[in-house]
C-alpha cells in the first residue's frame, strides 16, 4: 500500500543491520548533549525526523541521525533502551503496537490511551494535527456512479471488494468494523503493496490507503468520510526520552503545531515527484514556516 515505505523498507533492514553491528559503540545517552533522532524505514517518516533534527540543531543541540531503522519491532527496543532519544511516531499505529486490541478511534482518545500505554521512560509530546492514517478510498468514477461521499453511503452498494494490507482483515476498523458500524458488507482482498494499482485496475473497488499518500491526489481518488469515527486516528507525534521531554517540547511543540495534514501530504509529494533529499525538503519546510 505504501509503496515508498516498502521500497525503502529493504534499505531499512540493511540500515537496521548496520545499526545492530555499530550499536555496541553507540550507547551512552543522556550523559552528553547529543540528541539521537531515529526514523522508520518509511521516507515520509524520515522527512519528519529530519525536520526535528534541523530544528534541534538550530536550537543548539548536537544531533545524531539514525534514520531508516525499519519497523517498530526493530526500533522500539532502541527507544526504550534510550539509545534513540527522539522518534517521529503516529499515535494510532503506536498505540496498536502497545495495545493491539484498543477500541479508541478519536484523536484525543487515542492520544490519552497512548500516554497510558507508553512504557516508563518514554513520553509523547503534543501531537500534530497532521495525520497519516488508514482511510477508505474509491475511484472518482465509482464515487459518481454510486453517489458516494461517506463510508455510510456504501451500505446500499453490492459487490464491494476491499483491498489493503493483510492485517486490515483483522483490524477492528476492517471488514468486521465496516459491517458493525456502517452495515457495509465487503469481501476482502489482501492487495498489499499493489492496493492503489488494484483499485485503479478494478480488481478491488474500495481501497485502504494511508491518508498522507500523495497518490490519493495523483489519481484523484475520493476518500470517504468516516462520519461514525470507525477508523483509528493516527496523528504525527514526537516520542521522546522522558528525561528530556520538557526541554525538547520547547523545540518540537511549535513544529507539531505548524505541521498540518495538507502540509504532510505536500512533504510526501515533494519526495515522490521531485525526488528531493529529506534534508532539502526539511530545510525548505522549516524556512517556509518561519523557523
Amino acid at each position, binding site marked *: 500500500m505504501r509503496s515508498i515505505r*516498502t521500497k525503502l523498507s529493504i534499505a531499512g533492514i540493511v540500515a537496521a543491520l548496520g545499526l545492530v553491528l555499530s550499536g555496541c559503540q553507540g550507547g551512552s545517552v543522556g550523559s552528553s548533549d547529543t540528541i539521537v533522532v531515529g526514523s522508520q524505514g518509511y521516507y515520509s517518516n524520515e522527512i519528519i525526523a529530519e525536520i526535528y533534527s534541523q530544528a534541534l540543531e538550530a536550537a543548539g543541540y548536537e544531533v545524531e541521525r539514525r534514520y531508516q531503522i525499519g*519497523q517498530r*519491532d526493530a526500533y522500539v527496543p532502541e527507544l526504550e533502551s534510550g539509545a534513540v532519544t527522539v522518534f517521529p511516531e503516529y499515535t494510532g499505529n503506536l498505540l496498536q*503496537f502497545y495495545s*493491539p486490541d484498543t477500541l479508541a478511534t478519536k484523536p484525543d482518545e487515542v492520544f490519552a490511551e497512548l500516554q497510558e500505554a507508553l512504557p516508563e521512560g518514554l513520553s509523547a509530546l503534543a501531537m500534530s494535527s497532521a495525520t497519516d492514517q488508514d482511510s477508505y478510498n474509491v475511484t472518482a468514477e465509482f464515487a459518481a456512479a454510486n453517489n458516494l461521499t461517506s463510508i455510510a453511503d456504501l451500505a446500499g452498494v453490492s459487490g464491494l471488494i476491499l*483491498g489493503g*494490507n*493483510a*492485517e486490515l*482483515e*483483522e483490524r477492528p476498523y476492517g471488514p468486521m468494523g465496516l459491517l458493525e458500524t456502517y452495515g457495509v458488507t465487503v469481501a476482502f*482482498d*489482501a*492487495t*498489499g*503493496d*499493489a492496493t492503489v*494499482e*488494484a483499485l485503479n*485496475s*478494478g*480488481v478491488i473497488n474500495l481501497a485502504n490507503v494511508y491518508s498522507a499518500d500523495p497518490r490519493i491526489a495523483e489519481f484523484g481518488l475520493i476518500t470517504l468520510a468516516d462520519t461514525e469515527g470507525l477508523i483509528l486516528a493516527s496523528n504525527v507525534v514526537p516520542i521522546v526520552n522522558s528525561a528530556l521531554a520538557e526541554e525538547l517540547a520547547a523545540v518540537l511543540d511549535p513544529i507539531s503545531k505548524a505541521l498540518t495534514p495538507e502540509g504532510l501530504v505536500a512533504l510526501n509529494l515533494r519526495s515522490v515527484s521531485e525526488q528531493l533529499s529529506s534534508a532539502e525538503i526539511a530545510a525548505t519546510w522549516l524556512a517556509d514556516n518561519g523557523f
Partner: protein
Amino acid sequence: MDIIREAWEWLLAVEQYQGPGSIPQRVGEHLYFTVVSMAWASLVAVPLGYFIGHTGKGGGWLVGLTGSARALPSFGLILLLVLVLGVSNREAAAVIALVVLAIPPVLAGAYSGVQQIPRSVIDAARAQGMTELQILLRVELPLSLPLLLSGFRQAVLQVVATATLVAYVGLGGLGYEIIQGIPLRRFDQTFGTALVIVVLALVLDAALAWATKVATPRGVRVSTIGDVRARESLVQPAEVPAPSVMLGTK
C-alpha cells in the same frame, strides 16, 4: 520458551483447521503455486537442459544464465511483474517469478545429468545400432535421472520457501498468515505458520528423495556410499580400485 508453546497451541487450535483462511486451505494455495511453478519450470528447463547436454552446445552460456537468475531477488521481481503485467494478472506475475527461481537448478540438473555420462557409454549405444531417440530415452534419460531429480528437488525447496512471498500481492498461501501476523503482533500465528512451511518443505523433500530412489535405475543408484563408488566406477572405470565395486554390490 513461551513463543514455542504459544505457536504450538496455535497450531493445535481447532479454528486453524476450519473455515476460510484455515491451515489446510493455506497449504493448498501454497502447494498450488509450488506445483504450477515447478511444472512450467520443468517444461522449459528439462528439454533445454537435455538439448544442451546432448549436443554439448551452450554450456558456458548456461552457467552464466544460471548464476545471474539466481541473483534475482524474488520479492522485487514479484512486485515489479505485478506492476508491469497489472494487478489483474498478479497470479501470472507470481508464477513467472517462481519459475525464474526454479529454472536454474532444474536446467543445471538436466544438463549436467546428461553431460556427466561418459562418451564411451553413448558411443557404445550408438555402436549397438540405437537411434538418437533411443539413445536419449534408453541411455541418457535413465543415466541422467539422479542428477536431474536432485536439481528438481533443490528447485522445489527454493520454490516452496519463496512461495511465501505471493501473499504480499494478495494471493494467499502460508505466507499470508506470516505477513498478517507480524503487524498484528500475533507471534504464535507467525511462528506457527513458519513451522508449517518448514514441515511442508521437509515433507516434499523427503517425498522427492524417495521418488529419486525409486525412479533411478539400479545401476545408477546413489543411495549408499558403496553405490556412489559403484557409479563412479561406471564413470571412470580405470581409476576405481576393485574393492569399491565389490562394496557397491553388497
